[in-house]
């Protein structure tokens, strides 16, 4: 599918185009929409955003490359970003991050073979009183430990399996 002409996004795109003084200001929200459609910010998404905003694709790509929340390559179904910044690290986040990569058998930034999980570390997420924590597809999961994390991984695997079977 595409984002241009896709009824799923039409209203949101119009909202963003209307709220700013210039079209160009809508580049960030539109990149999020492209990422939602394609799973990552691919060339098609860049081209469509550029077309909507009358920008050159290179200008859009430079914005996508500047920010960490736009993914320039495909990620797993669950994109796990573990905060390992100082306050979280004082509460064991480095060990937790290393354990999680081991548990899933991935390197930093890697994705599990079944395409389910991508694990990477990120800078402070403003949840320092609830460390260790991570962000899963942009939603916070806090006060983690190994047991809680194993339960979550099982839950997400089940969710994905149910969705694949059309029962989700």
């Amino acid at each position, binding site marked *: 599918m595409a984002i241009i002409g896709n009824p799923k996004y039409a209203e949101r795109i119009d909202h963003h185009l209307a*709220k*700013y*003084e*210039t079209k*160009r*200001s*809508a*580049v*960030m*929200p539109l*990149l*999020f929409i492209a990422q939602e459609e394609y799973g990552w910010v691919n060339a098609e998404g860049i081209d469509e955003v550029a077309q909507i*905003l009358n920008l050159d694709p290179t200008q859009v790509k*430079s*914005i996508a490359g*500047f*920010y*960490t*929340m*736009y993914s320039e390559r495909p990620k797993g179904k669950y994109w796990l970003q573990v905060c390992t*910044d*100082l*306050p979280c*690290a*004082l*509460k064991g986040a480095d060990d937790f991050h290393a354990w999680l990569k081991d548990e899933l058998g991935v390197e930093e930034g890697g994705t599990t073979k079944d395409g389910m999980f991508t694990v990477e570390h*990120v*800078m*402070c*997420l*403003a*949840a*320092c*009183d*609830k*460390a260790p924590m991570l*962000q899963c597809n*942009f*939603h*916070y999961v806090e006060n983690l430990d190994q047991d809680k994390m194993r339960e979550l991984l099982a839950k997400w695997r089940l969710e994905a399996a149910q969705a694949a079977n059309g029962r989700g």
Partner: protein
Amino acid sequence: MHILLRGRDIENIKQLDVYEGHGGFAGLQKALAMTPSEVIDVVKASGLRGRGGAGFPTGVKWSFIPQHEPVKFVTVNADESETGTFKDREIMEENPYQLIEGSLICAYAIQAKAVYIYLRGEFWDIGDQLDECIESLRAKGYVGENIMGSGYNCEVYTHLGAGAYICGEESALLNSLEGYLGQPRVRPPFPAQKGGGLYKEATVVNNVETLANVPFILSEGADAFKAIGTEQSTGNKIYCVSGHVKRPDNYELPMGTTFRELLYEQAGGPLYEERPFKAMLPSGGSGPIVPLTDEVLDTPMSYEDCANIGTIIGSASIIVMDETVDMTWVASKVTKFFQHESCGKCTPCREGTYWLDKVIDRILDGRGSPEDVKRIADVAENMAGTTLCALGDFAANPIIHTIRHFPDDFARHVQT
């Protein structure tokens, strides 16, 4: 008494009818009955200073906006990204209408056309909640045309960033909001001037916590606000406490409360009884680290008193470390943060943070020499004051001050 974290006292204050039932929008109503310059005078008289870190007097900032300019904007800095800071998040999650009311009072005071709330991209769920709040407010005549029957029109919008610390710097934030790279601008012109703000129009950029104080100042009066805190640091402040304490959390207390009261009475003291406190970063990764001596513990948390102990209160994101923590490791952690977050525009910061990170890694690996410690101090000192924004200074702080206060922690790694 909570002025800001009222979600802790009043159940469901995040619902509009409950917020209204507890004095919500009395401040805005009062402001709308005054002239814009009278509103600015009240905020000036309150002594409120910016809560994002710089501590600049809020009313003075508003008064810089040229009244004759036809188009003006308010931008709310909700990019909360300083390491150890998680206060704006609680305000927006638990007491969102108070932030919007404060923003509208600011907007009226400078006669702004619109308010843009710039949220860090990770605050995805908060952005959705604020959008719902804005729609409820529009339905009841608090946002949009003819606000509360006053004839004043103002729109409120949210904008999500996408993961870049630098966008908390006001000119980078404005660039990002305009769809350009989130990099700082050359100033002057400053945001408050024509040519320097959002879409080149005069713009006030204020932190979330700053604006959340404003409804109280209008409804209760500047004197009620000034009665809290110290002479130069008025009102309450939210202190974000993290690291090795028993109860990491946000604590809203008067400015001028001592570090001892905060860290022992409120936060419960050291996380492990047998491991006393060693040091703290009182303003996240960007402010100078200080050893937690008795003198420091007895210092009031105010702009003026923190200067006396060689640090800043800044955003009051207090990261506490006990005696087991190696300060070379801390310098490395904080440097990695700034290396990652440097936007790349200014050479001293881009190259400096990169090389500092490399050399500290070498020291931590046991491959460094005593000259390396001198070298990083030298690099850090040469970065400070040479960049367009404060990130270059911030990145120098963790090196300069950890070496100054904890030379043994570095010496241990470089003994041959």
